[in-house]
């Protein structure tokens, strides 16, 4: 955890220097000083948006609650209550914000604003200040319908997180997963925090290993509706479903880009990984090795593919460079390494190891094989890691409470907690990129 803080400090300094506008750069050293003394989190004062009128006050309340729970979920922030008289009157400018009071309570950033009604729409105007310089670092207006208060709040949270960390946020992302709650294993989808769950398949047989395309337009999964496992690709806008019309079995898809999904197919006898287009047609074969080749996961540029192979006997993770055609073994620790997931930042691969005692644990490793790190231990089976859009969190399956359930943790293994309170078993989660 301590390492995590130090890394975070360093990352934050770099981000602050690289990404924040010139006006903030001069204060990079100050941020670091605060970071080392504090909890390792960004200390933020978030004021409830100012509002006049009963309806607007209700909106302000809801926007505040959604923003707070959203920012809290990320684990990046320490939200402290506003000191008395922090802000001036409604529609305030920076001159009327009491930065001295904010500094004295240790706040690094202050966010506040106002919500009004314009032609029936909700209009939220937000401002974010760095409290040391007292300068605005974000000013933005968010407009939407009254029924969209949650997504309006999350749009602000997304901008705030992206500004302060330089990484995509969880807001607007989805998690797809498998649940047996209906008596059959079917695919479900929910928001990053478990809200808005809906059932995506009704095969009444088996539907497994769901994964969304980078643009969120297509859902790929394996189902047994035809009596054998086949790759299905569902167009989420049109509702049309395509299958790969080849004999044999299909296992565990992973998207390379919006235009190609890779999966294991066996129509030529041996199990090999192929690239398939969203219309179900075959693009090309990418592996050629006797035995199991499985579970493709691509680097963000689509040029490299991590996968599982039994070519050296027990299952290990390999990386195939699609440009040179060369394959390199990545994992040497442990004798049963499967389920690779390439981080959206491109630097790390998460995977699971089955230990000799039957425990399954999640590890991360740099793509060059360095910096192996164990994220779970002593809690039965922990599997199917999948990264958040910013690479700072991981969703996974754990049987630590008996049945398999979905959990999240930060990228260093901290803050492990349940994602969903849902009956039955949940498994094989896959986190989408942030969907616009």
């Amino acid at each position, binding site marked *: 955890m301590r390492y995590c803080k130090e890394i975070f400090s360093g990352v934050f300094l770099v981000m602050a220097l690289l990404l924040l506008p010139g006006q903030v750069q001069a204060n990079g050293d100050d941020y670091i000083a605060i970071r080392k003394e504090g909890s390792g989190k960004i200390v933020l004062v978030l004021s409830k948006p100012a509002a006049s009128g009963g309806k607007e006050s209700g909106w302000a309340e809801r926007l505040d609650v959604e923003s707070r729970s959203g920012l809290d979920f990320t684990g990046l922030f320490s939200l402290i209550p506003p000191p008395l008289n922090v802000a001036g009157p409604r529609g305030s400018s920076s001159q009327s914000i009491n930065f001295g009071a904010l500094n004295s309570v240790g706040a690094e950033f202050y966010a506040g604003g106002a919500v009004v009604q314009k032609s029936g729409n909700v209009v939220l105007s937000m401002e974010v200040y760095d409290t040391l310089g007292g300068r605005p670092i974000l000013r933005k207006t968010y407009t939407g319908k009254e029924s969209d208060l949650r997504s309006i709040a999350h749009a602000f949270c997304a901008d705030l997180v992206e500004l302060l960390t330089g990484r995509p946020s969880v807001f607007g992302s989805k998690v797809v997963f498998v649940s047996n709650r209906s008596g059959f294993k079917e695919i479900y989808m929910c928001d990053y925090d478990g809200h808005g769950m809906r059932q995506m398949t009704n095969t009444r047989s088996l539907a497994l290993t769901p994964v969304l395309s980078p643009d969120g337009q297509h859902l790929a999964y394996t189902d047994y509706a035809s009596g054998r496992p086949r790759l299905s690709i569902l167009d989420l806008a049109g509702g049309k479903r395509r299958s790969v019309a080849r004999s044999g079995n299909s296992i565990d898809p992973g998207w390379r880009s919006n235009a190609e999904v890779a999966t294991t197919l*066996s129509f030529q006898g041996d199990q090999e990984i192929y690239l398939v287009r969203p219309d179900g047609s075959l693009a090309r074969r990418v592996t050629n090795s006797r*035995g199991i080749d499985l579970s493709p996961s691509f680097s963000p540029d689509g040029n490299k593919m991590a996968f599982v192979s039994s070519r050296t006997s027990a299952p290990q993770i390999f990386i195939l460079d699609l440009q040179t055609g060369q394959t390199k073994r990545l994992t040497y620790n442990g004798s049963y390494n*499967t389920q690779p997931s390439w981080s959206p930042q491109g630097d790390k691969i998460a995977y699971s190891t*089955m230990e000799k005692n039957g425990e399954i644990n999640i590890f991360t490793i740099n793509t060059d094989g360095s910096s192996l790190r164990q994220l779970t231990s002593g809690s039965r089976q922990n599997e199917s890691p999948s990264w958040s859009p910013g690479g700072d969190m991981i969703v996974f399956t754990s049987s630590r409470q008996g049945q398999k359930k979905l959990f999240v943790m930060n990228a260093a293994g901290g803050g492990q907690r349940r994602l969903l309170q849902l009956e039955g078993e949940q498994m*094989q989660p896959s986190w989408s990129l942030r969907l616009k």
Partner: protein
Amino acid sequence: MFLLKGLCVPAMLVLGACGCRTDVVAPEPGQPAPAPVAAPALGDVFYDFDQASIRMDAAEQLSQNAAWMQEKSSKRVVIEGHCDERGTSEYNMALGERRASMAKEYMVNLGVQPERMTTVSYGEERPFAAGSNEEAWALNRRAHFVEE
């Protein structure tokens, strides 16, 4: 169905324990039990952990299955590959398919036409025996033969 599976379990254990390999004929669930010395009957075969290779006892059974196929030349079978619950489910899906294909390949080598056999993997999704112990696991690592 459950009753037959239940009967099958102790039968397998006894046969396994005495090392008797010649007559390892697990009765097909839903089929009447075969007479002691009778015509060849279709039966399931079993595998070692994380392996898809054909064991000695499996070879005996596959020879019987091949004889059955040759006797009933109009019949087709589905060979289902199954795994125990250990390990990860995607890898078990792949392993289950290899188990089914190895069984098929063995029977092709004994002269059965490949087009009469289809393979499908269920990985760890459809276990035969409940329980998290070696007895259950041993029964769940199998190629299950089903008449089409």
